[in-house]
Every structure is written in structure tokens, then in C-alpha cells.
């Protein structure tokens, strides 16, 4: 069973739709028991880091997420808040992964980045079966710096982290649930971890 963390993230429905298209069984939940028991956990995210963190704290989900032992996939803001800190609203985040989230420089590039970008990945099960430099769809104004946990990068003014892995915690800056066949392959890879 897959648990999708329920906290009102904007792309929850899209993630549910993507899992339905893969005929995967899932539950949308904010209950500790269901999240801890799930084989896989998906942590969606669209919106503001500060708002995201306050909702998580309000529901006690911040503590629960840190305790997850099975593979967890954070998407977009769901990935960003796995880091220590975000410049968006000067937010202290979950601190599961070392590093900071910064804002794109609007003097250099159009912000937000909206659209399909190529992804350069290291060998990782998450990218199994994908072509070299696959396209994924992203929408964001903030990005995670490159660090030890970076498993894929993309370039937009600067090179940033487009996917991470730290032990059982995975994350993508892009939206696999909106990235057509490449996204489908990636989600399937995650489910097979």
C-alpha cells in the first residue's frame, strides 16, 4: 500500500490520478499508523514553503515524516522542505537532508520557471530505464543547492538539484505526475524500490 500524505497540497489530485493510471493501490492519509505502515510514501507539494511547514506542524506531520523508514518521495515543495532551510518565507524546514533552498535570480532568468527541462542524473534506481537527459515538467521559483544527496541536476540560470536521495528519502523538484511517459517510468521505479 502507498500512502499519500494528506495536508492539502495543490497537486494531491494529480498524484492520485497518476497512481490510478498505474493501477497502484494508495490511501490519502494524515494518520501516523497508515503512513508508517505504508510500503511507499508520497509527499506531494505545491505552494509556499512556509505555509507548507506550518500546516505540517499543525497536523504533527513534521515529526511523522522524519520517522518514516520506508521509501518516501517528496515532490516539488515536498522535496524542498526535506532540506534544512528555505529562503521562501525564511523557513526552517524538516532538516532530513543537508542543504538550503534558494530563490532563482529574476535578473538572470524568468521566474517562476514553468515548463519542461532536461535532467542529468547519476546512476540511481529512480531513473532506471529512462533515456539520457530526460525531460520533466517543473514549476518553481526556488531551488535546492547541489549537495551530497543530489542525484540529478538541471540548469536554469544556474545548475540546481532536480532530484535527491538520502537513505530512504527521495525527492524530485519536477512533477513526475505531470511529466508524461518519463514521469510514469519514474513513479513506477519509485514504487518498485
Amino acid at each position, binding site marked *: 500500500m502507498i500512502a499519500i500524505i494528506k495536508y492539502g497540497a*495543490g*497537486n494531491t*489530485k*494529480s498524484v492520485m*490520478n*497518476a497512481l*490510478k*493510471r498505474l493501477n497502484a493501490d494508495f490511501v490519502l492519509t494524515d494518520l501516523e499508523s497508515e503512513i508508517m505502515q505504508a510500503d511507499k510514501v508520497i509527499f506531494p507539494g*505545491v*505552494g*509556499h514553503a512556509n505555509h507548507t511547514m506550518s500546516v505540517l506542524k499543525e497536523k504533527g506531520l513534521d515529526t511523522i515524516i522524519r520517522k518514516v523508514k520506508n521509501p518516501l518521495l517528496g515532490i516539488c515543495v515536498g522535496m524542498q522542505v526535506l532540506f534544512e532551510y528555505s529562503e521562501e518565507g525564511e523557513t526552517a524546514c524538516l532538516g532530513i537532508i543537508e542543504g538550503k533552498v534558494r530563490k532563482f535570480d*529574476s535578473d538572470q532568468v*524568468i*521566474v*517562476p*520557471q*514553468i*515548463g*519542461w*527541462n*532536461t535532467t542529468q542524473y547519476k546512476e540511481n534506481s529512480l531513473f532506471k530505464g529512462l533515456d539520457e537527459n530526460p*525531460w520533466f*515538467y517543473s*514549476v*518553481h*521559483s526556488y531551488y535546492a543547492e547541489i549537495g551530497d544527496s543530489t542525484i540529478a541536476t538541471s*540548469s*536554469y540560470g544556474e545548475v540546481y538539484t532536480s532530484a535527491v536521495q538520502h537513505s530512504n528519502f527521495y525527492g524530485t523538484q519536477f*512533477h513526475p*505526475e*505531470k*511529466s*508524461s*511517459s518519463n*514521469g*510514469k517510468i519514474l513513479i513506477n521505479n519509485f514504487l518498485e524500490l
Partner: protein
Amino acid sequence: MIAKRIVPCLDIKDGRTVKGTNFLDLRDAGDPIELAKRYADQGADELVFLDITATLEKRKTLVTLVEKIGRELDIPFTVGGGIRTLDLVDELLQNGADKVSINSAAIKNPNLITEISEKYGCQCLVVAVDGNKIGDEWKVFTRGGTHNTGIEMFGWVEQVVGLGAGEILFTSMNKDGTKSGFEIEALNKMSQQIQVPIIASGGAGNIEHFVQLFQNTGVTAGLAASIFHFREVDIPELKQELQLNKISIRI
């Protein structure tokens, strides 16, 4: 590298596509989902659904349609057309729309821009601007391009970005339907003026028009309707030609 986006637009009335299509092998040319899936398979980067239903049933049919589109489509899509309230925006986003587009409502109530942007983030809000060049000045038009609001367009665009618009969908009324090419000059000016993505609309008639658009302006997306519906421009061919012209495109 980020790709320029090709965006087919579907006009919807009472849950069905209008204006027809030339896809003879579609089971039902009026079914927006079948057409949308076709475009997604051909490599469309995202889709815009413009609802022109003006009845009391609008809300219900639109929300139902958005829910269905979200189930079937695995690329991003925007919904626009007569969206005036935060309630409807809530429903559309919660039912799977990635972005909403507002036009007249933004002019009547600019505060709505800020409300949507603060609640969901600017990335889910497209402000559509229908511009018409009168003499030397660009004016904002509403009601399908029939009503001159008297508002100067470039000032308005600057204002809506300040209020929280994450993207601008600019339609040139002068060019719309002419198939004579995009409004390069105004689009170039706008893309230098603002730092959010711009979707260009109005005037696309052939592949070369998209090449000119991306070579001569900083816009990040080109939108068209009938040339795709009637197969005057084939999306895979268009994308190959853009790539040959060294324009970053997803193939």
C-alpha cells in the same frame, strides 16, 4: 535546458469542444478528452481549455470536465473562461487543473489576482490579456475582444505581475484569426518588460511563425487553436523544425 512550450488551446462549450477538428480518425471530434490526449501524444507541452459556456450550468459541467481531464491527461493544463470567484478557482484546482486563467475578472477585481496567488502560489495563475492596437497605443479589451476597457496594456501587464500573476497569456486581437504571424513587436517589448513567463497567442498560421516568435522575442510559449485542430500545422513537424532552428524544444 528549459524548452519553449507549444500549447494547443481547446474552446469548450457545455463540456464539448467547439469549432470542430480535422482529426478524421477521432471517434468523437467534440470530445475534449479525446482531442487533448491526441495532442499530448503528439508532444504538446501543455494545454489550455477555454470554457465559453455562459449558462448557469457552467460551473458544474466545467468542474466535471476538469476532473475527467485530470484523470486522463499526464501533462499540465490550464482552465480559463469566465472564472470570477475564488470558490470556482478552489474547485478547479482541487479537481486537478494545474493553472487557472482569468481575464475580465482581473480587470473588474484586481484583488482576485492577489487572493489566488497568495492562496495557491503565483505559479497556478495565468492572467489573460487581450490587447488591441488602436493607433499607436495598445489597449486592453474584454468580452471576447469586443469591449475596449481604455486601459493601457503594458501598464496593465506590469500591474498584474505586481499583484501576483505567475504567467501572462497575451492575445493580440489585431492578429487573432489572421494567420499572419505572431505580434512580434509587442511580444518582444512585453518580454523585456516583465520577468514572468509569457504565452503568445494570436496570428499563428504556419511553422515559420513559431520560429520567428521564439527567435525574435523572449516569450516562453506559443499558443494556437485552429491550425492544430485542422492539421494545418502538425505538432511533431513543428517541433522538429524548431529544433533545426536551434530552439530548445522537447522532442
